């Protein structure tokens, strides 16, 4: 090129640009630093329990960000029977349909549209009592017949958004407010399973019939605190207050909008610019302090610990010594320290501090011991591991940290990162060796719980052991919480003693709200039933 720009002038220009940007930044930061000063006073560190404590104000519009690809994705619409992403879309679904039961502050199951769930006949039958006089937002009654119609439709759908229950024998409505569900085997966890299942959301059968399923999934009708104004799939869901909502004075908000956001950084900028007032499910530990300096940022109790799944049906992990070598070579505490600054609780079982049946120490758990690991690897003549997981930056860091640790014990690891479809294909081969996954749920019998990773018949299990199957299914079947607890303790010990797969720690997610917004699950602690905590949107409000 004829007209060469001298590098010194280019550098000068770049410096000018930098100065302009810095001045612009400084102009803005004076405003934000004053706000962050007021913020930090109101923000409690780490697991900030309750921060916004003003009296609730009726009215106002709230825009909530949801991570695109997860909670911000509803590609199949919002019909409970067909929304395959339903477990992730709890915010949207709960807002439109309400819930039969909900998980409230402190991790207590409380009634919403239903008033009680009672096990009968040893847990093979469940009697659900509905709140009398309920109406859908289209004015039709939400009665037992509507629940029966919904449940039959949900269970008949091939979608795995339905719960995994023992075979259902019948669903009946003996009167207008009672539903009876009869199963072929006892299920003591049924009420807890509702919280992660589409059975918890009741759609208007009249609306489904009159609108047709196609239109209904785009603009569904329920009896929740809000009704749908507009719905652009996986982008924006605009809702307005349901004037016929059963609870007087609720919801507080006039309108609620859910918007998909690309990532945690984009969400931060959107919140800072005033484009949104809340973000559900921030999950980047390195951004926590930035979020906390500007917003009420509440760490929600995690319920699903990471575990290293080992395929006990194929070499090398059909050999218990190879499995033990992985246990002894895995130092979860050092990974937590180096990658996450000791933010999370290292566990030895399939539950986490936020969930039910949590055991900090499991007797017989093979704890980190590098010398034992080295000795076992030597006795095996070396150990090479194909290790895979779902592709994500956090998972990749995790895998590389484990690879380094294991290398110290002489274990050679090759890492493979897959999309969800690729991951499922790996499991389908049945020849996989080791995988980094999350195991567990708020209740081990619900969602992607214990059975999903350890039950023989699960396509995503690495263990095929009838004794463990009996313990897992026994824990689900028992109605008595104490008996369930004892059974799950035995299951945790059995997994440890057989070295079926080491556990690491659960990653938390954070719910974020601008100052002046409060609500259960948003600015208070509610355990996550799946990955994110679902705030109770009918109770979310601006403060006076």
């Amino acid at each position: 090129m004829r007209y060469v720009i001298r590098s010194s002038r280019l550098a000068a220009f770049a410096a000018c640009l930098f100065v302009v940007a810095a001045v612009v930044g400084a102009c803005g930061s004076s405003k934000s630093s004053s706000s962050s000063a007021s913020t930090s006073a109101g923000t409690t560190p780490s697991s900030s329990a309750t921060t916004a404590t003003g009296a609730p104000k009726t009215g106002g519009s709230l825009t909530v960000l949801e991570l695109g690809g997860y909670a911000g994705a509803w590609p199949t619409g919002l019909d409970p029977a067909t929304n395959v992403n339903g477990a992730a879309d709890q915010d949207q679904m709960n807002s439109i349909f309400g819930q039969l039961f909900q998980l409230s502050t402190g991790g207590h199951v409380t009634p919403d549209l239903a008033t009680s769930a009672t096990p009968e006949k040893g847990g093979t039958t469940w009697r659900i009592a509905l709140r009398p006089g309920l109406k859908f937002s289209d004015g039709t009654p939400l009665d037992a017949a509507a629940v029966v119609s919904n449940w039959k439709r949900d269970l008949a759908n091939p979608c795995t958004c339905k719960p995994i229950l023992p075979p259902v024998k019948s669903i009946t409505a003996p009167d207008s407010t009672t539903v009876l569900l009869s199963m072929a085997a006892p299920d003591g966890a049924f009420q807890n399973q509702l919280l992660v299942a589409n059975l918890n959301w009741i759609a208007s059968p009249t609306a489904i019939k009159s609108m047709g399923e196609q239109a209904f999934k785009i603009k569904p009708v329920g009896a929740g605190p809000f009704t749908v104004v507009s719905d652009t799939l996986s982008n924006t869901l605009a809702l307005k207050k349901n004037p016929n909502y059963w609870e007087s004075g609720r919801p507080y908000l006039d309108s609620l909008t859910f918007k998909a956001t690309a990532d945690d950084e984009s969400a931060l900028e959107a919140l800072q610019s005033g484009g949104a007032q809340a973000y559900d499910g921030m999950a980047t530990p390195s951004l926590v302090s930035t979020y906390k300096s500007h917003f009420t940022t509440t760490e929600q109790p995690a319920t699903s610990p990471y575990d290293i799944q080992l395929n006990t049906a194929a070499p090398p992990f059909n050999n218990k010594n190879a499995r033990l070598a992985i246990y002894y070579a895995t130092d979860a505490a050092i990974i937590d320290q180096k990658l996450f600054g000791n933010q999370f609780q290292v566990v030895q079982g399939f539950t986490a501090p936020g969930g039910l049946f949590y055991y900090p120490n499991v007797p017989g758990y093979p704890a980190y011991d590098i010398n034992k690991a080295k000795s076992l690897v030597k006795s095996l003549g070396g150990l090479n591991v194909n290790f895979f997981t779902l592709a994500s930056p956090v998972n990749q860091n995790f895998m590389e940290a484990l690879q380094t640790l294991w290398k110290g014990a002489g274990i050679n690891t090759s890492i493979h990162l897959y999309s969800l479809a690729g991951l499922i294909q790996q499991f389908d081969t049945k020849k996989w060796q080791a995988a980094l996954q999350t195991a567990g749920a708020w209740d081990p019998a619900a969602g992607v719980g214990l059975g999903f990773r350890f039950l023989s018949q699960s396509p995503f299990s690495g263990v095929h052991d009838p004794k463990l199957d009996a313990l897992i299914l026994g824990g689900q079947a028992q109605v008595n919480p104490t008996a369930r607890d004892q059974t799950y303790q035995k299951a945790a010990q059995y997994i440890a003693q057989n070295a079926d797969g080491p556990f690491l720690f659960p990653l938390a997610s954070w719910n974020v709200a601008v100052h002046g917004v409060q609500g259960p699950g948003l600015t208070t602690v509610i355990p996550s039933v799946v990955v994110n905590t679902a705030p109770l949107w009918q109770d979310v409000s601006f403060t006076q």
Partner: protein
Amino acid sequence: MSSTSAPLSAPLAARAGRARRLASSPTLSFIVRRLLAAIPVLLGVTFLSFVVMNSLPGDAAQELLGAQATPAEIHQLEIKLGLDKPFLTRYWDWLHQAVIGHLGHSLSSGQSVASILGSDLPVTFELVGFAFVISLALAVPLALVSARKPNGVADRLSMMFSMAGLSIAPYVLALVLVYVFAVKLNVLPAIGWVPPGQSVWQNIRYLILPAVSIGLGLLCFYTRLLRADLLEQMQGEDYVVTARAKGVRPWRVLTRHALRNSLFGLITVVALNLGTLLGFTVVIEDIFGIPGIGHELLQAIDNRDIPVIEGIVFVFAVIVVLCNLAADVLYSVLDPRIRYGRPTE
């Protein structure tokens, strides 16, 4: 058919004459030839995208049913969706339907692909159009100012600006722009979109940052391209020397004579850029939460929603082909010496 026909009335004869002239128009025959040549291009594009999507692990049934689905459930849904049919059969079925104007239905949402395109394409068109307007409206004056006095202060500043702009990826620029204009200055929104029917002013406000994110790179590229072409015209062409000898002012020579000739290269590049620009929308729409076709394409790829992907790819290909054709036709409008189908003198 009778060999003798009744004499045509005068208006009919005139109309027939016009039709004959039109049919024998070299430009029209050029357009027809190009459109016919586009058919194998479109077939190739749709076939290749079909091959690529089918080469990826997993399918829509697996994505729809989620991680807990058993192989039997997945197979059952594959049969229902027709995904169990051989690859070529599925492509043929899609092509056959597409030819008669039926692009099928989304495997995820059940919406017709035509309705998805109908709702999302206008959003993307508006974004892309806005980006083009910004880039061209600024590139032409910047290039003119640069070319007026090569190596002068304005030229050097303009070149440094364009060098910097070309070095920044659109998604990085998007984050920087949001930080400065939405977070710090709080003058423009960081996320979302407002339909023009709801508020034209808000619609423009929401489009500025995404359009600039896409358009800045183009602006810089166009500026450099046009400046180089203008300088070449100004320094080596006889008509410029003649104009100067006649006493025409340099600025007038630049804007009235050199610019018109330099626009050819720019038009070609603008037309070719359209494909790239549509590609940028995939990332930018996701960052800004804009419900356009790029966002839809990303979702469809995630969900292995082949009818939606094929529909979008097909429409993108048609748009690129048509824009290239329009650029070629525009040559003849800008330069009367060019008449397609006539021998060059």
